[in-house]
């Protein structure tokens, strides 16, 4: 676009993790002064690709060219020296160090000729760089306690302090508020004018089309297309990403019979997390909870489940006020929480599938105080069949299962506790499309059996296809409430981002 030669070019990149092919013959060329959007579903290989360019991973095969030279990037240090900087999805900062040190760690300015770090120059130059980014941050402030957006700015300043010419941004907006996103875009445009080559990964199509000069779409680790935003439509991009039209996704249909409210939440508040949250979920109903990452949805679920204390508010289950202080209280009232992060909160990875599944219902498989292996296996097998979990046998460590089957195993664990209310947090994050439809079918079945389901999801199609009603959260508060008939993607996004919608 602006220049004839790309700053950095990846050719025929192949990459595999533990035998699983994650990138197949992927090409990517980035020109100076361009913002290049990289888009694709979870697991499409976007992060892996930029991590290869940043020296974090080594490709199995393929070639990387920096300006005109074929280069080898064995580690992040080398990438840094070549002027390649990676801004991670979660800011990678040092909370115990101050802003200036976070910017300059590893290449602090020295007093002339001495190995001595020149702190005064470091603070002055930090202030200068932050100023040039238009960021109002004190270089002396400790990074602990800064917002995600501010930490991201610190990382960007770090990249600039090293004179980065290639800036790889891995979902930089995932945890930002709309205003922070706008601020970030101002900075990105500014850097583009200075000739920095930028790769911008995002899930949000509207961001991609707002900021990018070109868009590369990845699907299942393959390059599927390159477009200019002005020459394409959102629908086309989605079709490229998903590989099929949107309508092929699971749809639960409308007009479900609902019963009594099982879960009623009134004025729930927690300092700095969420305020005044009120809603209800009826028997047989799926309530979708939409919103941006960091809007406080997970915190609400955690508070309901008893892993985060509340400051104010009441919770009623089947009409009776309850005080849930810990997960066992929630379980006793028939409420379970299926967390987003299977790896850390949902499963004990090295333990067997059957051990994991029966964890929340140990009394069912024990006689007196003793667990019975035969009963455990029997129960586990039963649920493996019901949920159609694909595995070798129930004694297999759960970490060997695919993401979709792991998610089903987590569901099985909580279903065994025979809950009345299920809080689902991003039930299909990071699992492939086929498995997604399976999980959706399962959730639909649970609702039709009369369970009350609260489903947190950041995926618009999922929210729209599954929910009977939709609650939208923004910055810790409920910013929208839609019935299935009222809900459109535009309305939900508007409520989630606090923008007003121009519509008739």
């Amino acid at each position, binding site marked *: 676009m602006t220049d004839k030669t790309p700053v950095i070019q990846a050719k025929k990149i192949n990459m595999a993790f533990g035998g699983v092919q994650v990138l197949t013959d992927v090409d990517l060329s980035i020109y100076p002064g361009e913002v290049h959007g990289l888009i694709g579903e979870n697991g499409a290989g976007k992060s892996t690709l930029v991590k290869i360019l940043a020296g974090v991973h080594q490709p199995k095969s393929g070639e990387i060219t920096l300006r005109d030279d074929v280069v080898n990037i064995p580690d*992040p240090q080398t990438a840094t020296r070549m002027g390649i900087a990676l801004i991670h999805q979660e800011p*990678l900062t040092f909370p*115990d160090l101050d802003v200036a040190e976070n910017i300059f*760690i590893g290449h*602090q300015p020295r007093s002339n000729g001495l190995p001595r770090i020149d702190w005064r120059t470091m603070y002055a130059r930090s202030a200068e760089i932050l100023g040039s980014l238009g960021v109002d941050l*004190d270089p002396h402030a400790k990074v*602990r306690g800064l*917002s995600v957006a501010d930490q991201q700015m610190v990382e960007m300043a770090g990249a600039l302090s090293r004179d980065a010419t290639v800036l790889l941004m891995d979902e930089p907006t995932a945890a930002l508020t709309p205003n922070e996103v706008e601020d970030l875009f101002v900075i990105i445009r500014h850097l583009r004018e200075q000739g920095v080559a930028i790769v911008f990964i995002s899930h949000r199509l509207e961001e991609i089309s707002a900021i990018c000069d070109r868009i590369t779409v990845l699907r299942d680790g393959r390059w599927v297309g390159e477009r200019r935003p002005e020459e394409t439509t959102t629908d086309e991009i989605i079709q490229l990403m998903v590989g099929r039209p949107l309508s092929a996704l699971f749809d639960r249909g409308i007009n479900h019979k609902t019963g009594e409210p099982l879960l009623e939440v009134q004025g729930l508040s927690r300092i700095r997390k969420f305020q005044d949250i009120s809603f209800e979920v009826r028997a047989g109903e799926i309530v979708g909870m939409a919103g941006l990452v960091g809007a406080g949805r997970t915190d609400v679920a955690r508070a309901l489940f008893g892993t985060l204390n509340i400051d104010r508010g009441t919770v009623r289950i089947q009409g009776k006020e309850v005080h849930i202080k810990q997960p066992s209280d929630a379980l006793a009232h028939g409420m379970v929480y299926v967390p987003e992060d299977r790896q850390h909160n949902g499963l004990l990875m090295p333990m067997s599938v059957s051990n994991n599944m029966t964890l929340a219902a140990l009394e069912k498989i024990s006689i007196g105080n003793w667990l019975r292996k035969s009963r455990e296996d029997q129960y586990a097998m039963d649920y493996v069949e019901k949920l159609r979990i694909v595995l070798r046998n129930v004694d297999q460590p759960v970490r060997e299962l695919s993401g979709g089957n792991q998610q089903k195993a987590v569901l099985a664990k909580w279903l065994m506790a025979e809950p009345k209310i299920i809080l689902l947090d991003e039930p299909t994050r990071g699992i492939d499309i086929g498995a997604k439809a399976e999980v959706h079918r399962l959730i639909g079945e649970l609702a039709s059996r009369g369970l009350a389901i609260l489903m947190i999801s950041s995926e618009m199609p999922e929210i729209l296809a599954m929910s009977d009603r939709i609650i939208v959260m923004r*910055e810790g508060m409920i910013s929208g409430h839609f019935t299935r008939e009222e809900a459109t993607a535009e309305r939900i996004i508007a409520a989630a981002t606090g923008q007003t919608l121009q519509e008739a």
Partner: protein
Amino acid sequence: MASASDVLHRQQSSTTSLRLSRFREIGIIVFLILVIGITLIFKPDFLRPINIRSILLWVPLVIIVATGEMMVIITRGIDVSVGSILAFSGIVVGMVFRDNPDFNIYLGVLLGILLGAILGIINGALIAWAKIPPIITTLGTLSVYRGLVFIVSGGRQIDPNHVPVDLIRWSQRGPFGLQWLPWVVLIALGVAVLAALFLKYTQRGRNIYAIGSNPDAARLRGIPVETTTFLVYLLTGAAAGLAGILYASRFGFVNPGETGVGFELTVIAAVVIGGTNVFGGSGSVLGVVLGSLLLGTISVALSVLGVASTWQLAVYGFVILLAVSVDALIQRELRRATTGE
């Protein structure tokens, strides 16, 4: 919505954290005054020169080794082998002095540091490159090095008449023959000042904080995590080696079964009381010096008050628990103030 109230919150929490980080050093001083005050009630002549001297002679060994240990703990590690390293260096150099009465004492000191560094290198290599957890590694070498002490010495102790008189004098007199400021104290302060400068003004020093604060980020930022980890164990070994010689100077003997036994507990106590975060990332030399001083004062106060020395360990333990509990409370308040968790 970065509203004015957000900004206000942020400023408030940053001043709170500033106040709380200063709070630690002030807290130790307050506690120190408290200990002295209480002791003075029962023993009005507690601050006699002889007791002050006892305190001053108690702290140097701890300060020197605790400075190294602090760096280890900042990197989220631990080194419990320091007592054995101290004994090894003391016994080997003591034997050299015994067998060569004319051996230069400065060369002896250098040899002690070198021996300590070598044992530290073994720890560091196992931890940094073989990736064996620090507690397992140093628990192992704690025994191995102690075993070496017995093997090398044949179980015989180094007696006072084997330790060069000039070396013993380091614990008796200071510059210009000053009795109240022995050389060992100045050596310890020198080590502390060097360590503080190293930690503040060199890239390697800053890397120590960085890898403790966020190891993943450090690796991705291209900070040499392994080399830095290796370095802190090497330095701690060298410090323990130096302390071995000063032990011989201070006590006039080195005993294979006694010297440095349980010393790691005192050292870790000083580091933790000094405000070093046991989860890594932060810690200051000043804190460690004050922590050592507090422990030394408690130790001398207990013996002046006639409390059996067997009680001392229990008292250290209590002080550590107190310090860590106060820390935990502060951390929780900080977290609540900044994130609401």
